[in-house]
Every structure is written in C-alpha cells, then in structure tokens.
C-alpha cells in the first residue's frame, strides 16, 4: 500500500490523476473502520489532511458559504451554527465528540451513505458540491450528487473541494430518529429549510431511499399552499391540516427498505411525523422573526 500525503491541492489532484484507485482519506471515520476490519485494502491512501484550503471555510464572491471539504463537524457547529443552522443541527447528531472532531462533511459526501446526516440539510439548502481534477472544476447540485447506494457523481480522478451553501435566509430544521442520542446511524432523517424571500421550501430525506433525496412534490405543495393563503406575508399560524398533509407527501417521496435498524413501515411513518413537526417548528420560528 502507498501512503500519499500531498501538502497542496494541486499535488493532491495530480496524485489522484496518477493513481485513480487511491482512496482519499480525510477524518478516517469511515475509511479506517473499513481498513481495520479488512473490508478494504486499497492500493494507496491519499491523505488530504495536509491540504490547508480543504480545512478552511469562507464567503464566496456570490455571498454563499464555501465550506472546505475537510472542515470537521465540530467546527461547523462552533463556527457556522448561525449561518448554516440546518447543517449544524445535523452535525450535532453525528457520532460522538471524538467522531465530530475528526469527521468531515466532505467525507460524508465521499461515503454517500443514504444515512449520512449532512445530506438532508445540504439538499434542503440547495447546496452545490464543488469537485475538481487535473481536468478542471465542476459544481454539482446536491440533488444530482447522490447516484446510488453509497455512490456519488465523482469521476475516478476527482476529489471533493468544497460545498457551497447560501447562508440561511429563513428557519431550518433537522430531525433524526435513532435508538439513543449519541452514536446513532439514522433510522430515518429529515431536513427542512424555508426560503421566505423566494417563497420556496427545501427538503431532504435521509435513510429512507437508496440515496438521500428531496421531496420536491411535498415542498412545492407546502410553498404553494402558503402562498395561496397569503401566509408568507401574514405570518399567521400554520394550519394543522396543512402540516399533516405535507408530512404525508414527504412520506410518499420515500422508498425505504426493511433492515436491522428499522422496518420500511416505521421509516415511512416516522418521516411523516418528522416532516410535520419540522414544518411546524420552522413556521413558528418564521412567525417569531416578524
């Protein structure tokens, strides 16, 4: 096995181009488990923790947050809780302090598990994933990034550079079902973002389909009903029936399986409940800001 430890982004991309079967290594919280248990013996590890720009975040020219792929969950929570509340809420539910100190959003995207907690908030916030190779840079909408169970849109020579996310323009929520509070892989999860300026609702479903996915029909339904009733302007209470119907439509967007963590039926039911609650909580927050 080779251990490649580039110290610049250009060197990292060159190494990945030369050895496309090298496995990128960020926090190692997915990769090292696989190596420790002999589930994976890659010909090379490509350590990205020495590439400074991956560990930084800043504001892009268009005002969006540019989150380097190697920024840890702990830093998302500590430094970006106000601007990226949905992602920070999800980050707080990841693993344990030790896992959050090491695990990164880029690693979550690299693993592309349907249960990854970053995905619902990234989908709900219309995030884009910036990937790069020696051939160039491209930006992929989160909704197109997840291509199958633990598969993503990366080409073999590409690495994830950053995630681009607009700072929240309205309330965001993240809900996750698991057996206890710490160290839990989601049985099902749901992310919601209200985008009041655009009169749009964003959604993300986790652990209830082969990939993380949005619930577009549900989101359009809720945004449309809010607009029809003039609620975006009046900020009146969210009718209970509307929240319930939204929950049902989110549920209808899922395609879960039965597995050791939960049954498909439980996932569907919990999603409808989480979506209803997330909508109610987010709407209550929206009313308070008035």
């Amino acid at each position, binding site marked *: *096995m*080779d*251990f490649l430890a580039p110290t610049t982004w250009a060197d990292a991309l060159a190494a990945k181009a030369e050895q496309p079967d090298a496995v990128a290594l960020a926090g*190692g919280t997915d990769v*090292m488990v696989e190596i420790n248990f002999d589930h994976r013996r890659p010909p090379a590890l490509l*350590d990205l923790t020495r590439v400074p720009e991956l560990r930084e975040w800043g504001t892009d020219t268009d005002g969006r947050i540019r989150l380097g792929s190697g920024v840890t969950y702990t830093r998302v929570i500590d430094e970006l809780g106000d601007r990226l509340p949905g992602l920070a809420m999800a980050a707080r539910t990841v693993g*344990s302090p*030790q896992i959050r100190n*090491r695990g990164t959003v880029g690693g979550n995207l690299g693993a592309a598990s349907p249960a990854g907690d970053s995905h619902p908030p990234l989908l709900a916030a219309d995030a884009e994933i910036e990937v790069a190779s020696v051939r160039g840079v491209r930006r992929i909408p989160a909704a197109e990034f997840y291509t199958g169970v633990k598969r993503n849109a990366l080409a073999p020579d590409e690495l994830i550079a950053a995630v681009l996310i607009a700072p929240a323009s309205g309330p965001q929520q993240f809900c996750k079902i698991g057996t206890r509070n*710490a160290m839990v892989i989601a049985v099902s999860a749901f992310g919601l973002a209200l985008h009041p300026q655009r009169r749009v609702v964003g959604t993300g479903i986790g652990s209830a389909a082969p990939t993380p996915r949005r619930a577009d029909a549900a989101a359009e339904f809720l945004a449309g009903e809010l607009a029809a009733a003039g609620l975006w302007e009046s900020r009146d209470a969210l009718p209970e029936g509307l929240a319930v119907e939204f929950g049902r439509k989110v549920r209808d967007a899922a395609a879960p399986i039965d597995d050791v963590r939960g049954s498909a039926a439980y996932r569907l039911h919990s999603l409808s409940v989480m979506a209803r609650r997330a909508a109610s909580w987010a709407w209550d927050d929206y009313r308070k800001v008035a």
Partner: protein
Amino acid sequence: MRINLTINGERRDADDVWEGESLLYALRERLGLPGSKNACEQGECGSCTVYLDGTPVCSCLVAAGQADGREVTTVEGLGQGEDLHPVQKAFVERGAVQCGFCTPGLIVSTHDLLQRNPRPSDPEIREALAGNLCRCTGYEKIMDAVRDAAERAE
C-alpha cells in the same frame, strides 16, 4: 514507512509502520505506549482516545501516517511521573475504575472537557463522555469522579 511525531512532549520515531495502520496500533505495538486501549477499532467505544494536535480523537481511526509530524498526548502524558493528574486521582478515589479498560479514554475525554468547561453541568458531562463506553461501572461513579475532578481543579 517511518513516522516521526511528538508524543507526550518527546520526539519519537516509529519504523516499519504499515501504511494502513492506525495511530492506536503504532502507539501500542511500536512505541511502547499501551495506555490507550483497543476495544473496538471502529470509533464506538472511545477507549483509544488521545489528543491529536490538542483535539481528542479516536486513535483507532487516525492513520499512523496522518500523525506524522503532529503532536500526540496520550493518557501516559497527563500525570507528572508517578504523580497522577487530578482527573486520574478522582477516578481512582471515586471508584470509577473497575476493569479499567475504558479508563484511559475517559480520562482523556474528561481532561478535555474540564479544560474547555471547568464547571460542567451533569448533562454537559454526559454529552462530553457520550463517545466513551464503560461496561462495568454503570457510569454513576464516573459521573462522581468527573464532578470531583472539577471541584479539585478549583
């Protein structure tokens, strides 16, 4: 490969490190530091917790090569020679150690908690130690020890 790192304030080399090897393995098997324990090798139990550049991490999930040139502090580095650190004393005196397998990780996590938050509430203690499993004590004695260690530090 060879790695060179600062462990508990001392520059150390480790030779013949396998590229896929964990920092935990290198510490225990190559560097003569068996304090950090190997109980799960998958990040679940926290018994391998060490500081890496000042941040508590599961050393079983850090590739040894990632620690090259970095600073590592293990449970062996917290006391002064034979003098235990107050966190360690509190664990011993409060009966928070039974088989002791989880203890090194809990000591490091508690040490980190009290550095960041000298007077933690019970929910804050539970949250900070959520990544450390103990199969013996039922956690009550551990809670006592952490509260005691916080008081000793005042």
